[in-house]
């Protein structure tokens, strides 16, 4: 066991995989010499050298195109897209090229690559550097998507992503980079598609991921004090999605809530809520509830940003209200 920050877990995760497999390469803007703008990749250049850890121009299409082409020709490359908002400047590469190529070629092309990116708000960066884009990726067939909520998951899910033969988007909540937690020593390898029940409860299922996990856990604590047993599920992997865990819990509790950092419309919460409303409808004791930011871009000032993102208070209040 060692106490690690989430940002340290990122570099340990990358190092673990680069150590293991020499076809793993890592590229991005300011990731090598500078160790990343979030200091998530410090030490990698020194350890793996300037060929395998490499700074790129500000050319997101070239970066993502490069890892796609690299994966087509024998590498298992990892790209960093500094802020997930910048997916928008290379969305064609991600959504039209990487996601579709295996299917279009009827399986001729395998794309074992990873794109990792800093996601979400809470750090007062304003509307163009604070988005939660996990649902953008989830909506595109051909992409796998994980969102680790703590240092250990960061390493384990990342390792699973690198080893997966398909393209995986690893979404890192930037609000968590400073978070510390004990992490087991040695190699950590998790698997894609498994949610974690972080807390058991019999009254309501709260599905959550990323930085919202910690807020939901706080809320659950406070709900417990009021006699409401919340089961908190860290979804962790949006594609593949652990519907078994989600549906089983909902069947048990009869109440279903999602907590999302994303804007209101068409988030992963809408998807999961409608799966629940379709597949375990008769087990529900009340309406599904989605807690999201309002359908607005995130404002920059702390005063407003804090209002926009679901807080433990809001979660407690909405869960209680929904339970009548």
């Amino acid at each position, binding site marked *: 066991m060692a106490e690690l920050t989430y940002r340290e877990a990122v570099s340990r995760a990358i190092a673990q995989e680069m150590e293991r497999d020499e*076809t793993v390469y890592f590229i991005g803007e300011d990731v090598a010499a500078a160790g990343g703008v979030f200091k998530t990749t410090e030490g990698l250049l020194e350890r793996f050298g300037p*060929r395998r850890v490499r700074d*790129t121009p500000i*050319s997101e299409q*070239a970066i993502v*195109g490069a890892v796609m082409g690299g994966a*087509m*020709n024998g590498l298992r490359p990892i790209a960093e897209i500094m802020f997930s908002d910048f997916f928008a400047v290379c969305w064609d590469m991600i959504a039209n090229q990487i996601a579709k190529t295996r299917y279009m070629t009827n399986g001729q*092309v395998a794309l074992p690559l990873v794109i990792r990116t800093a996601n979400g708000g809470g750090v007062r960066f304003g509307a163009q550097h604070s988005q939660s884009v996990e649902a953008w990726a989830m909506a595109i067939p051909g992409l796998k998507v994980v969102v680790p909520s703590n240092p250990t998951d960061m390493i384990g899910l990342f390792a699973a992503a690198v080893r997966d033969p398909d393209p995986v988007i690893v979404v890192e909540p930037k609000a968590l980079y400073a978070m510390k937690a004990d992490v087991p020593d040695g190699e950590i390898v998790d698997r894609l598609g498994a949610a974690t029940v972080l807390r058991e409860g019999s009254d309501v299922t709260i599905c959550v991921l990323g930085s919202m996990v910690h807020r939901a856990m706080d809320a659950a604590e406070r709900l417990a004090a009021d006699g409401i047993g919340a089961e908190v599920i860290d979804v962790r992997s949006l594609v593949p999605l*652990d519907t078994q865990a989600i549906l089983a819990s909902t069947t048990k509790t009869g109440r279903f809530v999602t907590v999302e950092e994303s804007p209101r419309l068409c988030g992963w919460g809408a998807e999961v809520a409608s799966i629940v409303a379709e597949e375990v409808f008769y087990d529900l004791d009340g309406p599904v509830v989605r807690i999201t930011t309002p359908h607005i871009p995130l404002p920059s000032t702390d005063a407003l940003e804090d209002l926009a993102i679901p807080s433990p208070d809001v979660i407690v209040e909405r869960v209680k209200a929904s339970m009548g």
Partner: protein
Amino acid sequence: MSKAVRSRSDKPRTDEAVRLEIYRMMVEARLFERRVHDLFLQGLVKGTSHLALGQEAIAAGYAAVLQPNDLVYCTYRGHVHTLLRGAPMAALMAELLGRANGICGGKGGSMHLTDVSKGAMGSYAIVGAHMPIAAGAAWAAKERETGQVVVCFFGDGTTNIGAFHEALNFAVVWELPVVFVCENNLYMEYTPIRSVTAVENPAADRASAYALEPILVDGNDPDEMHAVARRTVDLARSGDGPSLVEARTYRHGGHSRADPAKYRPEEEVAEWVARDPIPSLRERLIADGIDATTLDEIDRAAERVVDDATAEAQAGPPPDRSTLLTELWADGGSEWRN
């Protein structure tokens, strides 16, 4: 007049055998695409389709110099490139017909012909997208020291999209073994390239923006094309990094099956059809002492190849329903949940 250097081979004409091979490739490609056009008219090719009739010398010039493990990236106008890399003609034809025996099982279609086993790494339908991807494949070649060269074909219109710029700069900075070949057929879809481009030669006049030599070549001259192909592929192979080639050419028909190409002046079309690379190579070969009967035999053989491929393609059934849900993931399936 542009400041681009016109590329003139100072070498003697290429070996006779290679020139005959180039001739054969062009004839096969031409007959293949003509057949595809016939099948359209019969309503058998669904969706769109983009022919390269008249542009064959470019693909053939490169095909003649590439090694088996080299990689080619092309566009929706990529039937010829894929064929000349050695993809089986019947499987290409079957893909256009949407059959189970298609090279992509019918999932790809005309705009996505791919045969990885032959280094035909795909036809890409979003303008410019394949340029960074080709650079990435070249990056892997360099890192893995495979000795591969990557060739990436694209159109004149493509030079105005962002991905072009990013790919060129990236490839030069990382000194990648990739050759970018602009097939300048003077039009994007229906719009003349000169009306939407700041420079006269959309690729060559931009080479210096990437510290590259401007190379402008007559894309309808198979000998010139072959010489440029040899030179640029050799440069890449020997570690001297990327090249950007602009080959001037012309498509005989419209942009796609939907296009009667009325927007082009008749004289322009006539002038370019007169410069068709196939008869002109044929004439030169005869002038250089090749027997006409040798060429006739190549023509006839090509017809047989196309007939056979067509028959084989048409014999294929439509894809099985079950294949709808296969090959999204490497496990062969498309499940997104447990």
